[in-house]
Structures are given as structure tokens and as C-alpha cells.
């Protein structure tokens, strides 16, 4: 009896205090999740309802128009955004991933300059986007004389997302177990062969997810483009990297400040398109992660 009574009282003790706390904790967790989801759902319902009359093919077939707000489209903005994001991906992803490889695989962390480098990258990730806009205007548009072109916009946005790409790629590379590297090296592979054939393939899901989330952030940026003097009213699609352009967030920004009700509806429809592009990109991220995920 004496032996049995101890565990029983322990169980009773536990059942007195724990369920309540555990419930509270679970409720707190659910509430946090619910806040995020409810607001996202509200936003989506609101913009879809508001933009519903304009969610048809004229939206992406037509160019923006001041004269005919009821049939104005956002084609130039969609193409402008796709050009900027495409070019940004081409520039920021290789640079960011290579930088991450250097920092994780080659850099000697006992050296002061490598630590300074790491500190700076973390700081850069926190710099407000408008500051990158000023940088782009002063250095890329004016000093390098690239003008207000897609190239200027894409370089600026690349600089903006680069720290995020580097940080997420580093995390992904670090998550590859050292045993994989050691095994490869023990079999006679060089360091580069180890990185190229073992480490990189193993970290693709993490790198891809991080990269796409970084690009998704870039797609919604309006502030740097305002600074860079991207035009808000553009009736032609970009024809190359040296073309003038507009992007969706800027068009939305200009539509909502117009007096006519039709532009408010158009803005809502444009927001739906922007959200759809974002969701597409995020689905690709999820797909890549599931496709390549390995567990050790």
C-alpha cells in the first residue's frame, strides 16, 4: 500500500494543476494562430468582395487608364512586377547562396573580419526598404547612370533581399549534418566536390523556401520604387531591362488615391492579383520543400 500510494498521489497532484495550465497554454497558442489566420481571411474576403466586379480578363488584358476607369487594367504592373522579380531572382539568388556557402563552409569564424561580415549581414536584413530606395536612387540610378529602369529597380530589390537569402541559405546549409561532409571527405572528395554533390543537394529545400519567401517579400515593396521614381502610370509593358516600368504595389497606391469609386474597385482587384502571385510563389516553396526534403 505504502509503495502504491506515492505514485497515486503524484498522479492526483498532477491532475490538479496541469490540465488547467495545459488548457490555458493551448488556448493561448490557438488564439495566436487564429489572430493571424482571421486577419488574413478577413483581408482576402474584403478585397475579393470589393474587387469582384473587376476580377475578369480585362484586368490583365488592358493597360491602366485614367479616362476609362471601369475597363482599366493592370497589365503593365503585372509584367513590371514579373520582370523585376525574375531579374532579382537571377541576381540575388546565386550571389546570396554563394555568400552563404562561403560563410558556412570556408569562413574562419575566429577571424574578426568574418565576424564583422556576419554582424553586418544581420544588420542589413533589418534596414528599412526606403533606405535601399535612397541607395538605389543615389548610386544606381544617378551615379551609375542606370536611370529609372527595370535594371535599377531589380538591382535595388536584389540588395534588399540579399541579406534574407544569405541568412536563410546559411541556416539550410548548417542543417546538413556534419557526418555527411565527413563521410564525403573521408571517401576522398575535395571540399568543393563535397559542397557541390552533398551539401547543396541536401540543403535545396531550405534554400528554396528561404529564397522564395525573400522574393515574396520583394514583390510587395512599394517604398523603394517610389524613391526610385518608377512611374505610376504606364501604358506599355517593359521590353527589356532598360525599359521604364511600373509595379503592382505602386499602381495600387496610385489607384486608391484617385477620386472615382471605380479606381477603388480596381485597386482591390489588383490586390487580389498580387495576393494570387504571392500564394503561387509560396505554393512553389512548399512543393519544393516536400519534393526534396530528406530526414536524417
Amino acid at each position, binding site marked *: 500500500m505504502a509503495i502504491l500510494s506515492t505514485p497515486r498521489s503524484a498522479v492526483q497532484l498532477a491532475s490538479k494543476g496541469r490540465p488547467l495550465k495545459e488548457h490555458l497554454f493551448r488556448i493561448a497558442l490557438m488564439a495566436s494562430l487564429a489572430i493571424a489566420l482571421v486577419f488574413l481571411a478577413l483581408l482576402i474576403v474584403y478585397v475579393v468582395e470589393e474587387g469582384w466586379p473587376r476580377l475578369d480578363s480585362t484586368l490583365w*488584358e*488592358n*493597360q491602366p*487608364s*485614367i*479616362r476609362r476607369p471601369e475597363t482599366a487594367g493592370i*497589365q503593365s504592373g*503585372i*509584367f513590371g512586377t*514579373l*520582370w523585376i522579380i*525574375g531579374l532579382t531572382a537571377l541576381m540575388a539568388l546565386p550571389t546570396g547562396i554563394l555568400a552563404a556557402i562561403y560563410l558556412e563552409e570556408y569562413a574562419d569564424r575566429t577571424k574578426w573580419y568574418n565576424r564583422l561580415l556576419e554582424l553586418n549581414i544581420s544588420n542589413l536584413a533589418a534596414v528599412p526598404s526606403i533606405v535601399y530606395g535612397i541607395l538605389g536612387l543615389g548610386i544606381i540610378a*544617378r551615379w551609375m547612370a542606370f*536611370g*529609372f529602369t527595370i535594371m535599377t529597380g531589380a538591382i535595388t530589390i536584389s540588395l534588399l533581399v540579399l541579406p534574407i537569402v544569405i541568412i536563410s541559405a546559411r541556416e539550410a546549409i548548417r542543417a546538413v549534418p556534419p557526418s555527411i561532409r565527413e563521410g564525403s571527405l573521408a571517401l576522398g572528395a575535395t571540399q568543393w566536390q563535397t559542397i557541390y554533390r552533398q551539401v547543396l543537394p541536401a540543403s535545396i529545400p531550405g534554400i528554396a523556401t528561404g529564397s522564395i519567401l525573400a522574393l515574396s517579400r520583394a514583390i510587395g515593396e512599394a517604398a523603394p520604387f*517610389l524613391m526610385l*521614381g*518608377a*512611374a*505610376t*502610370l*504606364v*501604358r*506599355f*509593358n*517593359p*521590353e*527589356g531591362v532598360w*525599359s*521604364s*516600368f*511600373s509595379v503592382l504595389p505602386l499602381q495600387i497606391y*496610385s489607384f*486608391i*488615391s*484617385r*477620386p*472615382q*469609386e471605380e479606381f*477603388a474597385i480596381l485597386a482591390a482587384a489588383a490586390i487580389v492579383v498580387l495576393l494570387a*502571385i504571392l*500564394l*503561387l*510563389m509560396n*505554393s*512553389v516553396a*512548399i*512543393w519544393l520543400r*516536400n*519534393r526534396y526534403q530528406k530526414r536524417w
Partner: protein
Amino acid sequence: MTSGQRRLSAVATAALVVSLAAACGGDAKPGSSESTSSAAASAGSEGGQLSGEIKVDGSSTVAPLTQAAAELFGEEQAQVKIPVGTSGTGGGFEKFCAGETDISNASRPIKDEEKAACEAKGIKFTELTVATDALTVVVPKENDWATCLTTDQLKKMWEPAAEGKVKTWKDVDAKFPAEELKLYGPGTDSGTFDYFTDEINGEEGASRKDYSPSENDNDIVTGVAGAKGGLGYFGFTYFEENADKLKAVEIDSGNGCTAPSVEAAQNGTYTPLARPLFVYVSATAAKRPEVSAFLDYYATNISTIAKDAKYIPLNSEQEAKLKADITTLKSQG
């Protein structure tokens, strides 16, 4: 793969395919879009197709005019690209005087320091008046006491000395009720703000600071419509589009009350709040055939353009002056 995973990856693949298709469309589309076909349709009507790019930036108030002009012009000259930026009057002049734009939209005349910047870069320009706007002072519909305000009463509300002191309508005029005065207006970067403070308070940029500023005039509409003692000011278009919610106050500048209207702004009786809207053209740019053609088009169709952009068209004298100014500008070259 579990069935759940398979379904998920099928969805994701579909998403990827769609996005790739969109991206490929992006590569194929430029150059072969609607602009080319309409160009082919209207080619020959002008005797020759022009091409090139006319960079425009500046006031967001004037942007709809130039944009409407660009849209109409594009129906004849589809190969001429006219991107219109909205950096604000000041931001526009900064780029214009750095030689980065060809045309600058402005809701106020160029300032001396901006002129100096242009001169330093050797940029010669011409000021063109392209339309008129009637700055409209609005109150909510339920306001039954303020039908006409004198410029002095407006000054009493908006001058810097009113800050913290003029809090109710009674403070403005003893005849008004003691309703709380809630002021809404454009932000200090706006050309509208510059013009209003200059005309009402006697000094550009001098205004009380305890009002609700907004860069988006629709916020002023919402604010004024929602407060019984509200008062705000903005361009005539915003009043016209919201005439169901707002009441435009008549303005008395010493010659009796005048309501803001197209006629009053055109014949000059709506003083002092009828303001000209400008377009500044660089003399060097005006020599380029596409810019020259665009300016001709702008001048010839100015009343259609103003109507399409929902602004008040120039009166016949102003229109004649615009055409003369453009002729002079082109003969300079």
C-alpha cells in the same frame, strides 16, 4: 508518398505551371501587345510613326491630365511611350532640373531655388498652363450653418496662430454653433497645401499644425463626411465625386459669395482658390519630334483632355495662350 502529399504536390505543380506560363507570356508579350495592333490600325493617319520615350514626373494632381493626354496621343502614336511618375511637384522639379525627365507636372509655379537648380544644369524650360482647378472647401452635408465663408474666416481657422486656440466653430464666428471644429487637409509636401496656405494665410507653408493631414484626398473625404464639425479642402474633382456626402462651401473674398464651379473657375470669379495647373517642358526635349508632336496634340485637344481627367478646361483666352506658348517654345529651337 502518401495520398495527401501527392495531392499537395499536384496542386503545387499546377501552381508552378501557371506561374511559368505567366512568366513565358511576359517574355513573349512586350512588342506584340495591343499597342502594336492599334499602331498598325492608325498608322498613316499622321503621315508617319514616331517613336521614343517622353519621361514625365511631378505632381500627382496634374498627373491625370498628362496621363489622359498620353492615352489619347497613344491612339495615334502607339510607339511613343509616355511613363508618368507621381513624385509630387517638388520631387518632379528635382528630377526635371537634373535633366532626368522631359516634362514636369506642377500644381504650383516653379520656386526660385528650383529655377536656380535648372539654370545650374543649363536646362531651359517653358511653363504651360494646361487646366484650372477650383480648390474646394468642404463640410459634411449635415452642416447647416456654414454655407458661405469669407477668406478671413478661413484664415482664422487655418492660420498658425489658430493652433490650440480655435477649437470650435463658435471660435471662428459667434453666429456659429459651439460644434467642435475638425480640420482635414493635404500633407505639407503637397502643392495644394502650398497654394491654399499662400492664398488664405498669406504665406506659403504657414498653417496650423493640429489638423489631420493626409496624402490621400479620399481620407479627407471620409474624415469630413464622418464629423459634424468637420472641414477640409482639396481639388474640385474630389468634391464632384463625393457630392452626395459633402457640401461645398461658397467663398467670399470681398465680392460676395461664390460657389466653386466650372464656370466660376473659368471666368475668374472663384477667387482666390481657383488655381492654374502647369506643365513644364524642357526646351531641349521639345526639339525631339515625338515631344513636339505630343505638345501639339496636348494643345489641340486640351479641352477633351481636361474633361477626361475631370478637370476644369481652360477658357478660350487661356487656350489661345497655351497654343501661342507652344509655338514660341518650338520656334526657340
